[in-house]
């Protein structure tokens, strides 16, 4: 290989990272792919329900890529930028075709065509699926292609390596590599690259328990933020309506359960035209007659029923429990698939097995007990793009597409704040990840080939690399040598509890301010943290504790942005400001890290609407009669 051959680093081996790697490798540039886990074990495997795309059947019923875009914008409460959403939804059918050719076992109709299912936020069947493990199947297909490219020498994997810091050239201010650590030998070293793609996923672990995987700490995004990359809309976090609360995590119960006909209900009795909590709400659900089951979503949203967007379903479930309608009076409602035909249940085997394994109850016979849990980060690293002059999409192959404010540093997939605005529609995440990788990957290759001004990373003097490496080694030394008293796991538990209680379903200003104070206190205690393992071989204690410091910094931006956004929009619900306020807040939040004072600086940038004017987001809600059993308590929290 020529000495000055450009290289590209991709950090993260989920759908976005793998799609980017194969796309860039195919464009003829070598890729170094970094991941904390073997890429086949990335968090994308947890996605269950499906992937959205306009298809011929839906098209003949009046659906189109334009409508898919419109649904995505309406779902996102118009906080999403329209050209990237236009581009993504118009590429979606191509992406399905490609994944189909790779052998993804999409469910089939009797004629052998790809089958479709209903999903939230749409009145059309436009979700492609492989059982109830679609994310796993899509990831495996890209994992296989990555392995194929690896044998051809086009991709070089660094598994069990943790990203620590982006290296930024002080002269040109471009990203020219990373510092990473081997999680086994604990060796720290710098790697040079002409572009770096961050595909590092969401930040659910900031909330303690969520539906996310253990590595989804937001640590990588936080490190980029501390190095000068901006965050976009960090306050937007999706709380999924249906999860199984657990001791170690909340397990997702896919929206596909409702897409296939699953119904949400609570035990209740109707008197004088009003629903009242059931006098025997702990009764076995199969003994509760139909007349004593209140199908809350179907009654309140006759048009969308159980398939309203997630933030809406989450709030309805949350408030109904606060009003005393929960199962046994507690914080659970029923999600019922027991009435579905066997053939339909079979399509949901993947998730019904999970429920049965973890609760011991068979959901084919007994309604599932579920509650909302933190699930997805709409916000993340702030990125830009080059729109077409008419706003219909992006300029194909433009090096700007999904670049952060740091030249040469890109953000793809969940860590990219684009596409979903204030709420993500179900089955749009897999699409967004693959789209970023395949579509924007070309822009990365073009940037590296044609747009770099100055010296290639490989020919730069070692100063910036050595400095960044030294900084990370010092950080490790400080943690290892710290002899304070704070237990990192206890600090994390407090962080998670505080964030979940203050900043999930309901966001009350006074409660968030209280959490902000706690956060500052936790940050002070973090300076006094003590490791229980100070060795330098596979030290997971060190990796976790370091990530905790980064989580605290990310959480502060998230909380500050939530406090300052004095409106309600999508997943961000403020009881003190219950309406959407377009005049003041039809804007992207940009968080910049003020390193000198260790705090976020927040700015706002208007969101243009070149294609669709924002409209009220009601999903056809009608008023229903219900008696408030108790006053709505101020106890805003998801499952924890």
């Amino acid at each position: 290989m020529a000495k000055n051959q450009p290289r590209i680093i991709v950090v993260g081996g989920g759908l976005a990272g793998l799609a980017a790697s194969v796309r860039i490798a195919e464009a003829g540039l070598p890729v170094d792919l970094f991941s904390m886990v073997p890429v086949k074990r990335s968090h994308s495997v947890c996605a269950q329900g499906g992937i959205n795309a306009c298809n011929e059947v839906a098209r003949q019923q009046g659906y189109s890529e334009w409508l898919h875009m419109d649904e995505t914008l309406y779902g996102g409460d118009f906080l999403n930028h329209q050209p990237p959403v236009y581009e993504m939804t118009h590429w979606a059918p191509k992406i399905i075709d490609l994944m189909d050719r790779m052998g993804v076992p999409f469910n089939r109709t009797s004629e052998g065509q790809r089958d479709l299912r209903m999903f939230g936020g749409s009145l059309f069947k436009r979700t492609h699926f492989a059982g109830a493990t679609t994310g796993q199947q899509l990831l495996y297909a890209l994992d296989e292609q990555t392995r194929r490219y690896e044998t051809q020498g086009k991709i070089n994997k660094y598994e069990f390596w943790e990203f620590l810091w982006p290296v930024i050239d002080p002269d040109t201010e471009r990203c020219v590599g990373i510092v990473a650590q081997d999680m086994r030998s604990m060796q720290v070293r710098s790697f040079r690259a002409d572009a770096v793609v961050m595909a590092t996923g969401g930040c659910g672990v900031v909330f303690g328990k969520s539906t996310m995987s253990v590595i989804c700490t937001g640590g990588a995004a936080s490190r980029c933020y501390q190095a000068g990359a901006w965050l976009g809309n960090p306050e937007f976090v999706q709380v999924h309506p249906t999860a199984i609360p657990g001791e170690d995590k909340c397990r997702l119960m896919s929206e596909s359960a409702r897409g296939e006909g699953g119904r949400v209900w609570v035990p209740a009795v109707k008197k004088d035209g009003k629903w009242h909590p059931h006098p025997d709400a702990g009764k076995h659900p199969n003994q509760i007659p139909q007349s004593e089951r209140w199908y809350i979503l179907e009654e309140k949203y006759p048009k969308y029923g159980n398939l309203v967007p997630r933030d809406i379903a989450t709030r309805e479930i949350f408030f109904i429990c606060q009003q005393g309608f929960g199962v046994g009076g507690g914080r659970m409602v029923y999600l019922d698939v027991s009435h579905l035909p066997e053939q339909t249940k079979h399509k949901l085997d993947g998730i019904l097995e999970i429920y049965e394994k973890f609760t011991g109850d068979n959901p084919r016979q007994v309604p599932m007990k579920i509650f909302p849990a933190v699930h997805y980060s709409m916000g993340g690293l702030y990125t830009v793009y080059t729109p077409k002059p008419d706003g219909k999409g992006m300029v194909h192959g433009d090096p700007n597409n999904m670049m952060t404010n740091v030249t040469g540093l890109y953000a793809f997939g969940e860590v990219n704040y684009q596409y979903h605005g204030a709420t993500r529609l179900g089955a749009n995440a897999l699409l967004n990840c693959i789209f970023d990788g395949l579509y924007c990957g070309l822009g990365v290759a073009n940037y590296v080939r044609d747009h770099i001004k100055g010296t290639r990373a490989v020919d730069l003097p070692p100063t910036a690399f050595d400095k960044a490496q030294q900084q990370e080694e010092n950080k490790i030394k400080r943690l290892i040598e710290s002899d304070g008293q704070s237990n990192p796991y206890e600090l994390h538990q407090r962080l998670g509890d505080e964030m979940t209680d203050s900043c999930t379903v309901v966001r009350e200003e006074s409660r968030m301010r209280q959490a902000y104070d706690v956060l500052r206190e936790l940050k002070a205690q973090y300076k006094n943290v003590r490791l229980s393992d100070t060795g330098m071989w596979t030290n997971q204690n060190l990796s976790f504790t370091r990530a905790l410091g980064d989580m605290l910094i990310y959480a502060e931006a998230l909380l500050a942005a939530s406090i300052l956004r004095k409106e309600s929009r999508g997943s961000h619900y403020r009881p003190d400001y219950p309406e959407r306020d377009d005049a003041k807040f039809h804007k992207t939040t940009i968080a910049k890290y003020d390193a000198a004072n260790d705090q976020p600086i927040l700015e706002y940038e208007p969101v243009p609407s070149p294609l669709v004017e924002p409209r009220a987001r009601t999903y056809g809600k009608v008023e229903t009669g219900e008696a408030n059993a108790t006053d709505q308590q101020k106890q805003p929290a998801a499952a924890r």
Partner: protein
Amino acid sequence: MSSETNKNRTIRFKIKRQDAPDSPSYWDEFDAPCPPGANVISCLLWIAANPTTTTGRQATPVAWDCNCLEEVCGACTMVINGRARQSCSALIDELQKEDPVVTLEPMSKFPVVRDLVVDRSRIFNALTKVKAWVPVDGMHAMGPGPTETPQQQETRYALSRCMSCGCCLEACPQYLIDNEFIGAHAISQARYFNAHATGASLAGNRLDALEGPGGITDCGNAQNCVKVCPKEIPLTESIADIGRQTTVHAIEKFFTGK
């Protein structure tokens, strides 16, 4: 379901540990509180935060691999009470029916990295050997893939759920830490890709790889693999099917000289 009476119980964990690949192994015991619904992971998390052994020694936290905690990533496989399985779906209530003490060991068929963490790169290398991929023309849209019947999809879907966790290999008497046997998972993946219209173009290469040393003839037909697979993949069917395919392939090669 868990019983209410066990709310404040404490469970003893006996954990086989090893500080580094070339260090000797030893056992540590910990007592961890186990609320109803607890699994091995939630207890290991508690132990990580409170690593004091039953003898009062301040130990280092136990190292183990995990990620999704929903039994779809395959990371957290270890030997629990003598059987390889995922520690996320190993519920304490269920384990209590087997033994009051929970014993955790690293898988024995892979080199130990530290404590319960093992090096499973051999699993992924095996996927490369059988060319476990569909050789698509590239990452561009070129129309849909081949159609298939719902029955074909069902067969392939069952095979596609292999998460490379290693349970089938740990249970296999023929798969040893220092031999060459490729293992049931890879044989099953060869069947998966041979069953795809485009994937079948590499069928000959896959069968060649499985005919040689460490290939399908090393299978001793113990059938342990299919019993321990957490995803209930029909591994023995795959082995039988690939057995037939290699035979036919060998005869074809004999007569065509290719």
